């Protein structure tokens, strides 16, 4: 066994090992499988292979970070069981024949030294029995070649302590060459396994080469100052005429901090950039907000809106908690609602044109998905009342806004909410769309939503109720052909709604045998 793979001076154990491992199939590491395949062997061979298995596991893992696997070796073993030469036997040979030299010595053949070193130290690990990799029979490896072990143990102990020290110094480096990285990661990961390793506390998890997260200290004072400045400049809607200039740079600043979420939308976005002034978008946005609010009012999904919109507006949430609050003064009757809503919807309107397609994407996804389910709690009369409510307050503000906004025709507040849909539509077409065409689309959408709402009202009245419920919506969707005998409402909910809504709609059992929502 030992004869065939005698070490040539040109070839190092490491290169041999590499060659052998290259020929092995790559498979996911399965320790159990390898141990099981080991169990099939003869006892002696099993023991040796187990020992070597752990070593080879560690070596393999550290060398190749999972690309080559124990499973591969096990596979190889299974196939080459009948053969005399296996990687395990090869490693055994390496152990027996390779010169025992410390990694710390400035050897020209640094790498091959590492292999036996690592192999030996891994053996040391298994012998100590403190590894998680430890196989079910920790005692048996120690019975093998006791003479060899004794000598190596003594030598190993000494060397490893030095090893650890050296390695700890080396681990603090952020970037390392792969070979060294292997060694250092290996060694330091050994640190974790040894029972009282004094230096291990300083090393966190270098096996994964994790860099400490660079955290800059947050200058809270500067942040608050910025907030105050922004709040002063943006001020009240009545004072808008004074501060359109001030809000413009804010929008630009916000534009700059835009997360690069829609790279494909760059072309279409530029069309929007020029379009709206900040205050008209404020008007639109507020009215759209009003509509948005109306849709989500009373559903208890306010916080859902926040989370739904949270994906994109997150970068905006910090610099302008003040700004949305002030803008929200327009829709004052909504001021009673949660502040979270303000935050989310404020974020909705303040970034203005360029951000609105993306936001409208998310909001429209939300809205469109919400559509079937928003109208449950508020009665259909409520739906009718709410638009009249905001209508009263908003037109009062409208004159002041239009004065400042300049030449702009009065927009029907009903239609204002559709503007988001229109923007989403023109985004989806990926082409510039005529204004006339957009107008037609808006009319169609308006009719469509009116029909939908009427239907819902009628359905609930048909069932002798005053509240629009889930059954009405299911009927509507069934008429539309979305809900069929094959596809149920719950399936659609699962498919299209975010998880937060799903929790509210589909009954799910929670701890203590409580089902929510109650059936």
């Amino acid at each position, binding site marked *: 066994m030992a004869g065939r793979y005698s070490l040539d001076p040109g070839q190092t154990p490491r290169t041999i090992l590499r060659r052998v491992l290259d020929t092995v199939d790559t498979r996911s590491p399965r320790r159990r499988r390898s141990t099981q395949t080991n169990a099939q062997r003869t006892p002696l061979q099993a023991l040796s292979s187990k020992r070597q298995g752990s070593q080879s596991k560690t070596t393999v893992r550290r060398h190749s970070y999972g690309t080559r696997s124990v499973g591969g070796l096990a596979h190889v073993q299974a196939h080459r069981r009948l053969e005399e030469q296996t990687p395990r036997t090869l490693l055994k040979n390496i152990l027996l024949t390779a010169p025992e030299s410390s990694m710390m010595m400035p050897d020209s053949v640094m790498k091959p030294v590492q292999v036996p070193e690592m192999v030996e130290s891994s053996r040391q690990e298994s012998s100590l029995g403190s590894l998680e990799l430890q196989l079910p029979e920790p005692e048996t490896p120690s019975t093998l070649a006791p003479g060899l072990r004794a000598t190596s143990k003594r030598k190993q102990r000494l060397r490893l302590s030095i090893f650890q020290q050296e390695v700890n110094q080396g681990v603090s480096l952020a970037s390392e060459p792969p070979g060294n990285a292997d060694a250092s990661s290996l060694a330091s990961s050994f640190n974790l396994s040894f029972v009282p390793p004094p230096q291990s506390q300083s090393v966190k998890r270098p096996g994964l080469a994790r860099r400490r997260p660079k955290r800059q200290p947050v200058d809270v004072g500067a942040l608050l100052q910025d907030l105050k400045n922004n709040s002063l400049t943006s001020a009240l809607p009545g004072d808008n005429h004074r501060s359109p200039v001030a809000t413009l740079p804010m929008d630009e600043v916000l534009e700059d901090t835009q997360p690069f979420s829609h790279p494909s939308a760059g072309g279409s976005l530029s069309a929007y950039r020029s379009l709206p002034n900040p205050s008209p978008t404020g008007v639109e946005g507020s009215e759209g907000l009003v509509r948005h609010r109306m849709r989500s009012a009373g559903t208890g999904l306010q916080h859902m809106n926040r989370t739904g919109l949270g994906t994109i507006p997150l970068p905006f949430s910090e610099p302008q908690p003040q700004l949305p609050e002030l803008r929200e003064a327009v829709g004052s009757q909504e001021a009673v609602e949660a502040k979270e809503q303000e935050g989310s919807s404020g974020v909705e309107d303040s970034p203005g044109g360029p951000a609105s397609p993306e936001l409208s994407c998310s909001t429209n996804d939300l809205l469109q998905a919400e559509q079937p389910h928003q109208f449950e709690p508020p009665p259909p009369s409520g739906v009718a009342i709410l638009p009249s409510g905001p209508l009263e307050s908003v037109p009062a503000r409208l004159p002041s806004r239009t004065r400042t906004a300049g030449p702009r025709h009065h927009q029907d507040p009903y239609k204002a909410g559709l503007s988001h849909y229109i923007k989403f539509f023109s985004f989806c077409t990926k082409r510039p769309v005529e204004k006339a065409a957009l107008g037609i689309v808006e009319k169609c959408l308006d009719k469509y939503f009116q029909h939908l709402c009427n239907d819902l009202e009628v359905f609930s009245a*048909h*069932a002798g109720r005053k509240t629009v419920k889930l059954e*009405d919506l299911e*009927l509507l969707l*069934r*008429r539309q052909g979305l809900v069929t005998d094959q596809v149920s409402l719950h399936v659609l909910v699962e498919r299209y709604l975010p998880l937060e809504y799903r929790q509210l709609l589909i009954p799910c059992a929670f701890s203590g045998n409580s089902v929510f929502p109650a059936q």
Partner: protein
Amino acid sequence: MEETEAEEQRQFSHRQRLKAAVHYTVGCLCNEVALDKQVQFNKQTVAAIAEVTFRQCENFAKDLEMFARHAKRSTVTTEDVKLLARRSNSLLKYITEKNEEIAQLNLERKAKKKRKPEDESSHSGEPDAEVVDSES
């Protein structure tokens, strides 16, 4: 296996017969309209209208059943029909008028039936005649 196939065959032939009936009725109607408006109807047009009518009837039936179930009823009533026809205003008006007429008739019939037990003791043959009269 064979039974299901036979069943399918029967259903299919049934469908075909229904389609033929619809086609015939549509043809008659189209001829009336043609005479009325002095226009001609193509055969394909008539066939198309017949096909559309047939499919729409299927849809109506399913919707009616859904509406009845939604109202937790097992019978399809005029309410369901009115719900179905709500989109078309003229149709809805027509149906509502018809519905009112029928309701009136029913009321009259009920009133007459109430009078029947009183009259039965005195007049035996007349109630039948009256019922027949009201029905016609």
